[in-house]
């Protein structure tokens, strides 16, 4: 979060402790022209855990991943991955990381097996060994039937699995997943989530960027929210939700035109600012959950407001995201950008 001290910070605070942080970032900065993509970010990911990196488009998520994966050089700060410096030790680091990107980076004209064999050989393995490893991965990702078909005949989900398999060829201890399920159908997403969970159970450290908050909630032990290149918050999903506040009462109105009446009727029972109408539901922050629904219904009936549905809800990561990135204060029509 701080800026100013750039190269002065030595790497002593982020030494290569073996069972501590697998990824350790200090004061990382990167600009493209006038745009500060990363503006002094600190971040730690413990070995064998998943960190979900959240933020709107252009927040700096991909820049962070690209620096950690040695594809970009930072302007300032340090980044250590698997005990190695992402700039000074880039060649050695490439042996220890896997990268699966947004675009399913496989060669469409090669078969699944040829793709994995090529990657294995580029890690320096002889062809026979690379092929064996390729077959092993295809089996694990249930692609063996399609092993000898060009990847252009694969479905979206199959390509993502092949892409992930390619990232795993060298059994890397640290894995970067840049929006791994972007554009996948729900069933393929679920299957990919289960695969990722399996990898983490085996000890892999994962840094995951995503725009899907349910994905982060499910996979990530800790979450970091960034925007405009700055770290806004970091913690477990529960910690972040608690920071946003307690429970929320959500009331769906029979007629949206009565929103103002509803807000006026409920303002007395809100524990935190006035109730909000977001175009669909009226939200009221409540600390005391028992009796809240009955209380609210009575007030609304008295005010003559028709209620279609009413429920108590814990804050979701959507609420966290909106609260942190400031979009929550925007007019009702502004939906979170998916």
């Amino acid at each position, binding site marked *: 979060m701080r800026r100013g001290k750039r190269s002065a910070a030595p790497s002593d605070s982020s030494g290569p402790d073996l069972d501590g942080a697998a990824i350790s970032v200090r004061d990382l900065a990167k600009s493209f022209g006038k745009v500060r993509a990363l503006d002094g970010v600190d971040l730690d990911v413990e070995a064998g855990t998943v960190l979900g990196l959240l933020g709107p488009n252009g927040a700096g998520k991909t820049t962070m991943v690209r620096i950690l*994966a040695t594809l970009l050089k930072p302007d300032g700060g340090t980044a250590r991955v698997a005990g190695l410096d992402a700039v000074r030790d880039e060649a050695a680091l490439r042996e220890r990381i896997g990268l699966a990107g947004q*675009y*399913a*980076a496989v060669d469409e*004209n090669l078969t699944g097996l*040829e793709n994995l064999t090529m*990657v294995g*050989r580029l890690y320096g393995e002889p062809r026979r060994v690379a092929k064996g490893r390729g077959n092993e991965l295809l089996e694990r990702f249930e692609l063996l039937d399609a092993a000898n078909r*060009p990847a252009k005949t694969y479905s979206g989900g199959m390509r993502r699995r092949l892409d992930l398999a390619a990232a795993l060829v060298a059994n890397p201890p640290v894995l970067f997943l840049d929006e791994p399920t972007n554009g996948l159908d729900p069933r393929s997403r679920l299957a990919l989530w289960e695969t990722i969970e399996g990898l983490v159970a085996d000890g892999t450290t994962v840094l995951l960027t995503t725009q899907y908050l349910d994905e982060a909630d499910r996979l990530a032990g800790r979450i970091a929210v960034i925007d405009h290149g700055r770290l806004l918050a970091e913690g477990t999903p529960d910690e972040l939700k608690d920071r946003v506040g307690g429970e929320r009462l959500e009331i769906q109105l029979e007629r949206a035109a009565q929103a103002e009446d509803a807000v006026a009727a409920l303002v007395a029972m809100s524990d935190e600012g006035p109730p909000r109408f977001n175009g669909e539901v009226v939200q009221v922050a409540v600390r005391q959950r028992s009796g809240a629904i009955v209380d609210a219904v009575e007030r609304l009936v008295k005010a003559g407001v028709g209620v279609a549905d009413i429920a108590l809800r814990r804050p979701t990561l959507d609420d966290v995201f909106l609260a942190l990135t400031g979009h929550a204060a925007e007019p009702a029509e502004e939906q979170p950008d998916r």
Partner: protein
Amino acid sequence: MRRTIKDTLVIAERNLVRIPRAPELLLAFTVQPIMFVLLFRYVFGGAIKTPGFSYVDFLVPGIIVQTIAFGGFVTALGLNEDLHKGLIDRFRSLPMSRAAVLAGRTCADLVTNALAIMVLVLTGLLIGFSFHAGVVQIIGGFALMLLFGYAFSWVFAFLGMIVSSAEAANSVGFIVLFPLSFISSAFVPVRSMPAVLRAFAQVNPFTLTVDAMRALWLDAPAGNDVWGAFAWTIAIIVVFAPLAVARYRRATGQ
């Protein structure tokens, strides 16, 4: 160094394996130039006077030079696609040689260019072309063509990485190569052109290269054309290979 060669071969293999699977590229290499040969031989050729040569002898070296120069398109299109589909990112995240992606690409072009030269020479022989030179000169001509094609592969590698899309690579490459290949001695004698075009054609490296090919394969009087053609070709490599490599290092694939 050994690692670079190994990785280059892996990438070259990858680029060659895919050619039969994307047959439209193979057609661009083989059928299209054959159509050109037939067009000029049988449609335009009768109206073009080439003192000292039969038109088919005059034509074949010219059309081979043109075809080989355009052969680098495969590199431009392929690199551009790799960049935008994230494959370059994958390669750059691997512990492989940094030079191998480009070297593998251009080496694969050597193979496809050799194939194109064979197809065109065979077509030429079928419609009346014949060599009028010794074995050493003929082999020298093949060598010049492969080197010339290799040089243009680097030009196209650079082009493929600076333009935004494969379509853009296609049109920019075409706009540059079209005048170079047609305002030259490839299809008609330079003397038959108006003064302005003639001046351009006389300094055009394509003219130099085509004349060198005619010297090597037809024993035409060459002057310094042969050495000049080799010098031009090497100069193109010396300029564009480092440009392409520098561009590759900075490539982000955004």
